[in-house]
């Protein structure tokens, strides 16, 4: 096997323990170095160009880096700057512009960023209006941005176009080919929007798109890379977990957690089975042909590194750790993750040697550190801080690494560097951050809809690392009905004689009562569920508890299953 040949040396430093606090401060300094130069040289453009010290618009023209970095400010504890930026955005950002924007990117970065900023604004000391969290200026902005994206969903299949003009809707002659992730990466933001605003249209389009993908999966249960949203024909038939597909799987899981939705989870579990069967080799995940399951590309992509983190969320910590350790060896070889890494050759792939300071591996490290407290994960954090500082720090910020073989730099700093990379690094080194709240702290907010418990932890990070508080989804819509029911039940507690017989309500297929429109589709999901339940009768919305040997599965030790 591949990894056994590459024994990394030593763990002396790990055992003695990293100085977590000092690394945390270094991450903070990195943030401000980049953030201040963005404000100084690039604002109001989307991104900073660190080599030329100026700005450029990349994904639209909405000061993207600022929106993206907003919640990072609060996570770093800078409430005053958060408040200032909220005001700047309210005045300065306009979505009525004649710009062709990527539906996917606008959703995850702009809608997601504004939603999380909206939900965090009370914690940041921003004066919120009385209807918060069900109304507020940032929420309105998010809703406006999301509405601009809705025309893209008007296709025969319900799967959205990849690009939309914010002013005119879908351009005539727009290509109908969209990547899988561009279709299935809406449910977290859109369901949150629907729950907060009360307008179900967002969640509905997101669900419809998810179902269309589910219906078009291959016989062996895989999805390809790109699909024609009009004819529902697969254009790129490579199946894997990386670029083009990644956040689709991520959102199935996160949507299931956020909405307590069994249907989404059963979809994911089916995919997971197929992925394990066809693409997993020696804890690597390769690319295969979606209909035949034959290996098409034996590469590891930088974007795939989110997978261990996702696995840890559903309790597959052992496998997650093993895959993570594979990926970590690639980092050790180059000081970053190349976009493509040829696994058999053990080297980068031509034209794909760059590392745009992506967060995925660090993200996984953060999730896994929560689960295992393994010092190896802190080591990755240390390596990331050292690498990024040594290699990509320039006078005006942090530059994308154009080529990991010689560490040549490119004139770009993507907005996810501040939104994700820095955030996850900081959270890795700050185990007491409020983002890691395990439910021992919470806030009680009085809204016109009733009392609401918020900030009780369990934040769901969208794929651009914008946290969504799952409790907020239960604050606005439907709150009243549930309260009356609860009140009735409580009366029973104090009454002498129990008169009523109580029967538990069976869980609906998915949270929001929207009946399955596509009956064939729904039945296929049910069939999947049944297949699951035959094997193990447990609820889909649960994790397996960890095995005994997980106690010792730290510092690189992995255990094989007994089976």
């Amino acid at each position, binding site marked *: 096997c591949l990894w056994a040949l590459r*024994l990394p040396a030593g763990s002396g430093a790990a055992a003695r323990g990293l100085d977590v606090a000092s690394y945390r401060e270094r991450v903070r300094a990195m943030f401000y170095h980049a953030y201040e130069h963005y404000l100084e040289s690039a604002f109001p453009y989307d991104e900073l160009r660190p080599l030329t010290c100026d700005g450029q618009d990349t994904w639209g023209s909405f000061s993207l880096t600022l929106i993206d970095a907003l919640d990072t400010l609060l996570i770093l504890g800078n409430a005053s700057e958060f408040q200032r930026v909220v005001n700047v955005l309210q005045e300065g950002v306009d979505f009525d512009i004649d710009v062709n924007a990527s539906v996917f990117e606008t959703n995850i970065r702009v809608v997601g960023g504004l939603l999380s900023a909206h939900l965090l604004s009370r914690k940041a000391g921003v004066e919120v209006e009385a209807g918060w969290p069900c109304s507020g200026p940032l929420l309105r902005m998010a809703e406006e941005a999301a509405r601009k994206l809705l025309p893209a969903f008007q296709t025969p299949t319900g799967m959205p176009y990849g690009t939309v003009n914010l002013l005119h809707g879908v351009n005539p002659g727009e290509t109908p080919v969209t990547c899988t992730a561009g279709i299935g990466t809406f449910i977290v933001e859109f369901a949150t929007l629907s729950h907060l605003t009360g307008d179900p249209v967002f969640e509905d389009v997101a669900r419809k798109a998810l179902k269309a993908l589910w219906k078009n999966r291959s016989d062996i249960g895989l999805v390809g890379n790109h699909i024609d949203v009009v004819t529902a024909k697969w254009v790129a038939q490579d199946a894997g977990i990386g670029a083009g597909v990644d956040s689709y799987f991520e959102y199935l899981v996160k949507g299931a957690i956020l909405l307590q939705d069994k249907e989404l989870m059963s979809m994911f579990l089916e995919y997971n089975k197929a992925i394990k069967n066809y693409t997993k080799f020696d804890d690597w995940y390769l690319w295969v042909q979606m209909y035949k399951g034959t290996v098409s590309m034996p590469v590891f992509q930088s974007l795939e590194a989110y997978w261990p983190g996702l696995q840890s969320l*559903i309790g597959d910590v052992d496998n997650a750790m093993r895959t993570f350790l594979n990926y970590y060896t690639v980092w050790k070889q180059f000081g970053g993750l190349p976009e493509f890494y040829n696994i058999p050759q053990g080297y980068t792939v031509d034209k794909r040697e760059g590392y745009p300071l992506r967060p995925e591996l660090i993200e996984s490290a953060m999730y896994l550190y929560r689960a295992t407290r393994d010092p190896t994960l802190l080591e990755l954090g240390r390596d990331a801080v050292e690498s990024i500082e040594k290699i990509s720090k320039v006078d005006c910020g942090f530059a994308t690494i154009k080529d990991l073989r010689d560490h040549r730099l490119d004139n770009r700093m993507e907005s996810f560097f501040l939104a994700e990379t820095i955030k996850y690094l900081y959270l890795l080194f700050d185990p007491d951050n409020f983002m890691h709240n395990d439910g021992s702290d919470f806030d009680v907010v009085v809204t016109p809809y009733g009392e609401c418990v918020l900030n009780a932890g369990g934040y769901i990070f969208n794929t651009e690392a914008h946290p969504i508080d799952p409790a907020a989804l239960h604050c606005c819509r439907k709150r009243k009905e549930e309260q009356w029911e609860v009140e009735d039940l409580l009366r029973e507690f104090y009454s002498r004689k129990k008169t009523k017989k109580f029967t538990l309500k069976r869980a609906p297929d998915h949270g929001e009562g929207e009946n399955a429109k596509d009956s064939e589709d729904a039945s296929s999901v049910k069939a999947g569920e049944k297949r699951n339940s035959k094997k193990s009768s447990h609820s889909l919305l649960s994790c397996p508890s960890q095995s005994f040997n997980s106690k010792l599965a730290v510092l690189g030790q992995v255990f094989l299953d007994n089976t």
Partner: protein
Amino acid sequence: PGDAAAPRLRPRATLMARRPELLCGAAIVLCCAFLVALKVTCSRAKDVTMPAKLPVNFFSTRSPVIDLFRGQLDYADQLRQDSEIVLYFFYAPWCGQSIAAREEIEHVASRLSDQVLFVAINCWWNQGKCRKQKHFFYFPVIHLYHQSFGPIEYKGPMSAVYIEKFVRRVMTPLLYISSRSKLLDFLSNYEPGVVGFFEFNASPQPPGYLTFFTSALHSLKKDYLGTIRFGVVTDKRVAEEISLVHSGSVYLHRHANTSLIYPEDIMNFTAENICKWALENREMLIRWLRPHGGKSLLLNNELKKGPALLIFIPYNPLAEMHPLLDEITKVALEYHKCNKSQAAEPDLQHIGDSDSPAFDSSITDTHLKFSETFPISKYPCCNTVVLPQWHSISRTHNVCELCVNQTLGVKPNKVHVPHCNFLEIEAALDSFYLQEHTFFQVISNTIECSNFFSFYSPFSYYTACCRTVNRHFLSFIGSEKTIFQTPKVAFSSHGKKGNTQFSIPHIEDRNCFIPDLNISSTNITGLSCKTNKTLNLYLLDSNLFWIYAERLGASRSTHPKEFAAIVDLEEEVHYVLDQNQSLVGPTLEDFIKNFSVLYSPLKRHLVNDPSIPFHEEHVVTEVTTNTFHETVFLSAKNVLLLYYAQWCGFCASLNHIFIQLARLLPPDSFTVARIDVTRNDLPWEFMTDRLPTILFFPHQRKEQSVKFPEDFSVNLPNLLKFILLHSSLSSSEPCNQGPVKECLHKESVLQQGHISHLEREIQKLRSEISALHQAHDQLEAQLSEARREEQRLQQQKHTLEKQHKILQFHSEQLKATYDQKNQELLEMAEKLQELADASENLLKENALLRILVTSREGKLQSKDEIKEPLQSDQTLSEDNDISLSTATTALEEKRIDNIDTIDTEHSSGNRTE
């Protein structure tokens, strides 16, 4: 051409007139092309790249390490020629591990710089020689050279002491053994030793010595932990101790098995072969585990072999003496010594020297006294049972000695069986457990015995004698006399009932380690062969791998960092040596013994999360292993318990529901609690395999816990119904009987609860109302603003409408002029047509005239030839000619004009196209 051009022109003009958007489209295409061009120029600016920064010093210039930060591998190789021992440190400047190891290397270099050359080479810089020649998958890489031998890669921990030790072994791979005592020292070590005997008196270097030396170096290459040590003996008399007679023979020492001599007749005497032979045949009584930090199956492979005793001790590889390690080695040797006859080997006696005899005797003392004080122990077949106890605070135990008596009945044969029959003891235990409650409340310091009959055989009866003993019995060997002072033996008949309230399962007893009360006075000598629960013994350096100990339940604050645990991967249990006892040979022996006996008194260790303070008030009570029993079983409330794990997404998103629930339920009769089961082990029967799991323990019927059904969604109403459903029984029944006063009291308490709940509700509603008011005000403000906005918009609309009208008027005017122009254009076209026709006619005329002229000329010529006179005629014709030519030139000019205009017409048409 004019003829063709004009009709083509017309339809296009009309086409354009009808579809102005086509014009726009063209404009957009043009614009796009322009933009693309712009983008190309822009992206040229985007293509700004920057080469990587030039390498700089990695080590400080004052450091004893030579830093070749430009990766000059060739220079490094030059340097190597001058030094006997060289250490190469290949690093990448961005690598965290290299940075962390830098200090360690510097530390080693400062200690060994006079004997070893330390060279650090930047093997990342892509202009450097090193990067071009070497291809590493990780950094740093340490290579050692002993003269020309090398590279020997160091793969141990990146810690200065370990590196230094390894470098020292590369410096002196062979230990010179000069005397008998040194030989004994060398052989008594727990790590396998290879001794070569070479007589140096014959020649300057005896044959084979160099091979042996190289094989020692070779073993360092293969076995980077350096567990096999190589020694050389030159004295014949010393060599005789290990029965080596011939110079050049090699001896592998083994403790438990017979030692070996290198079979030269079978294998060639080469360095590789010797090394291989030693590696294959070495004996691993006790092994160091040093996980390298990368992905590895080391623990998996070792622990899958069977139960393992992991001993954590702080280890300094450079230290001369390791007294603790020696003691552990002794235990390991004893444990593995299956054949007593082998004890005659010299080294074992040597080890025996270091024993403290006083200690030994005290142990046997214990057993002696014990058997004295326990009068029952003379029975042939006994077993000690420790009764489970819930109070972890209590320092005492009820210990029973259970013996099988077969005085009655017929014995089928007379063969005396020295050991107990497994089945017999098992049956006895079964019977005993059934009667167990009898022994619960034992008055301390007296031994109380009872006899009871077996349920399986009427011919045998069992005797159980119980007493209460102090918990940390073995650690107070001195005070043990007082415990067993004047034991009063009082037999009580079977069936004497004490308090039988508790009927608690056995396994979940949460007391750490129960000292060995086993009556069988066997020591552990050769135990590994006698028991079917053989332990593998492992050592871990607690300086490096303390985290494993913490995972197994070692407390974080323990000092020194010593810890021992038996891990049984297959059974998924582990046992821990009581941390209050010091880790010494005898306690370790007892630990092993207790594990090995049938009905082991060891209790499965339950790891408890120490980070949660014992009693901190939270809305949702946080339960740990230690507080589990107290919170769930001893409290008089209904308990709703959530099993969760911090990493499980499905659990974390339920936090807010449980907080709401806890705030709603009356706190004096309900506890909402949760337990993080990744950090808190629970007794088997309370374990769960899925998370989240919700259990409800109704008060008064705690043993009848109910599980929240998995296929229902977890939300507030469902949880309330679930609780109501299962707590209803207790509160609905009692008022029918019993005194009225109590009933009334209960009622009033209940109502008071209700009142306070309603008060809270009212408060909530009040705040809600105020929130609504606020929202109302806000809406009002927004509405008025919207109205103002609307008004403003209306005004704007008016002005816009006006402007619109003006524009419409303008457009009409424009249309009229456009029509007019169009008409003119058509007229022009007609005129042009006429002109074209005219020119055509003219051309025809021209052609005719030419023919005429030529024919005339022909005639004239023929006339000239024939008749010279008739001059007057000639002049006339000349005149004619001139007039003709002027006419043709005029015609020609006209034609050219005509074509020009057509051309211009054409080009203008093109432009509009």
